[in-house]
């Protein structure tokens, strides 16, 4: 990656060195207890305060996962029975499948769309703030009840989507009540809310020093080469951050599934997200102990995937400070 000519080396910001540009190697920077450290704690303070409210339910749910709590009577300790039952629960397995498919399809597409749009907007379009807001707005509303209900109408058999398809001569199915397509409709909804990661990507793209691109142009690099050799590596921490956040969020999807299917996870369990099944177990079937066990399994799953990501990050993410 030696695309730097002798002259431009002098304009490198002092925090960067060529050593830092080698993937996988992080240069050591002395850590001081400067004002940055203190301000970090100040920003974390709301989270600490929130923790005070959630810490007791957190451990209560751990305790309840070893009981047969049915909401109406006192819980009885049953040990690992809940976890054993989870191993053979076919609906649990299918809810995991729904959640995994949803996550591993919508998150990559969502991130790619976010990055693509951020790249386009970074070219310096007039009215950038307007575009940015327009794209960001869906991600604020996307998880809301109103939008999901709206989605149900748009993708219904008589909805706008099918009417548009009819113009081209295609008779679309009901994207909402057909078990083969219901989940896809929710995936589209999740992708539509790519605005939040996009805004972060846009900010990150702004941080990439333009001189790298200039130097690359001098060396005759194409736009694609520039993307893969300059943009992606320098953006990798931000891509990593968005990936983790999106994964964690997607695994916990509830509202979209609940509203779209009226709480049933239908049609035919095709939108039965893990959290929705957990909710049904707890409130419809009065098996709150089992639901608590499910919650801890989800925590474990998310933890495992996050850990995998952190380990994998050593190979493709590098930080330049």
């Amino acid at each position, binding site marked *: 990656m030696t695309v730097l000519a002798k002259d431009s080396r002098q304009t490198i910001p002092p925090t960067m060195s060529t050593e830092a540009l080698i993937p996988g190697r992080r240069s050591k920077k002395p850590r001081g207890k400067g004002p940055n450290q203190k301000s970090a704690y100040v920003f974390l303070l709301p989270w600490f305060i929130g923790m005070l409210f959630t810490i007791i339910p957190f451990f209560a749910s751990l305790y309840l996962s070893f009981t047969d709590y049915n*909401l109406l009577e006192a819980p009885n300790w049953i040990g690992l029975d809940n976890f054993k039952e989870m191993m053979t629960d076919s609906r649990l397995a299918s809810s995991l499948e729904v959640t995994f498919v949803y996550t591993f399809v919508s998150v990559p597409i969502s991130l790619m769309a976010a990055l693509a749009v951020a790249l386009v907007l970074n070219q310096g379009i007039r009215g950038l703030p307007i575009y940015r807001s327009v794209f960001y707005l869906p991600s604020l509303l996307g998880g809301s009840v109103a939008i999901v209900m709206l989605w149900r109408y748009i993708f219904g*058999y008589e909805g706008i989507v099918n009417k548009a398809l009819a113009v081209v001569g295609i008779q679309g199915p009901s994207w909402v*009540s057909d*078990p083969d397509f219901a989940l896809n409709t929710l995936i589209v909804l999740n992708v539509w809310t790519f605005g939040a990661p996009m805004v972060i990507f846009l900010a990150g793209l702004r941080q990439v020093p333009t001189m790298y691109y200039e130097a690359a142009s001098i060396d005759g690099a194409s736009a694609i080469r520039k993307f893969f050799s300059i943009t992606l590596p320098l953006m990798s921490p931000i891509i990593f951050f968005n990936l983790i956040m999106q994964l964690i969020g997607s695994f916990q999807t509830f509202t979209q599934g*609940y509203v779209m299917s*009226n709480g049933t996870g*239908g049609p*035919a369990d095709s939108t039965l997200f893990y959290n929705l099944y957990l909710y049904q177990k707890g409130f419809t*079937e009065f098996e709150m102990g089992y639901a608590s066990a499910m919650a801890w399994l989800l925590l474990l799953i998310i933890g495992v995937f996050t850990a995998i990501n952190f380990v994998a990050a050593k190979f493709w993410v590098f930080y330049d400070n």
Partner: protein
Amino acid sequence: MLVLTGCTSSGAGSADGDVTLDLVWWGDTERAAQTNAAIEIFEEKNPGITVVTEYQDSAPYRDKLATRFAGGNPPDVMAMPNRSLMEYSERGALADLNEFPDQLDTSVIPESVLTSGSIDGHLYGLATGLTTIGVALNKTVTDDAGITIPNDLTWTWEEFADFSIEISEKTDGKIYGTGYNPSVETYVMIYTRQQGEDFYTEDNKLGVSETTMRNWFQYVNDLRDAGGYPRAGFFEQQGQSPAQSYLALGTIASQFIPVNNFQAYNEASGGNLVLLRLPGETGSERAGYSIDPSQLWSVAAKSEHPEEAALLVDFLTNDKEGAAELLTQRGLPINPDVAESITAQLSADDQTFVGFITDLQESELPSNYVYPAGAATVADILIQVSTELEFGRLTPAEAAKKFVTEATAAIGE
């Protein structure tokens, strides 16, 4: 999640209410207005009691009720769905209303109504009103198509199928002959009884056989193939309000409904509906109809004021002035004197459904039993299996087997 929630504090502002009761129910704004009007009369008659009311849509209501019990703050008086009565009473969450003979008078209530909310002789739920299932048919459609409606007292399921197919054909497929929801257990219960079985038996087990379920599923499939029933995926929303029903939209000509909702459906459908009996009542093993509680009033076992709560239930059941406000919102009043006193005030449509029920009461009807614990899960299983059947993922035989297996497990747990 709480789509419709309202919290009103009724009462003439008496600051010295010695006792405050919580009353909760599910329903829409119309039901809330009528109930609150009745509550005001109760408070006038009982100056020491203030009633705080709250209501939600049915699904959020069920969740909130469970949460309130879990949190140790149950409402004093609540509307209890049939499906949930066993779940709550089995765990000692509800009070035995038989223990309040001074406050709650059940002397004129028919025995069959009392048994539908009693378990081992303990009255855990008192029916709010009576209802049953009927076929709501858009007569204008059949008149325009020149089809005569068969005699609903004697028609068979085959005749009903032929009738529905004829409607679809004569309207060039624009209006389906029927669009009843095959996954509502109260409809299946009537069909099951006609086959000589009980969906839920007296000893709280699943009594419907695989054969019966298979025939029920096969019937819908055949009707769908023949065009009398809408294609798969047609129903995108089930269980929505009468105003949004497919019957009101005019895309189907008939539907099964709880008869106490007849007025709402008829208003939404421009007054074109007639109310008929379900097919198969004659010529089967036995008649399938029963008069059912549409919902139940229950009192929490841990209520701080159980006597006052019982007084409230007594008012809701036996008071004629209160009934004049409540009318038939939750079914025909179970107290025959009260029912008679409000007849004159009922609209023509409500009188239709009252007549429907009183006609049925003249025959000897089978008893209906309390739903077992796990009934809510069974309802969900039925929906799920019906959807898989609808999209051809299961054959009727497989669907029947899956339903019976999973439902038995859900009740047995």
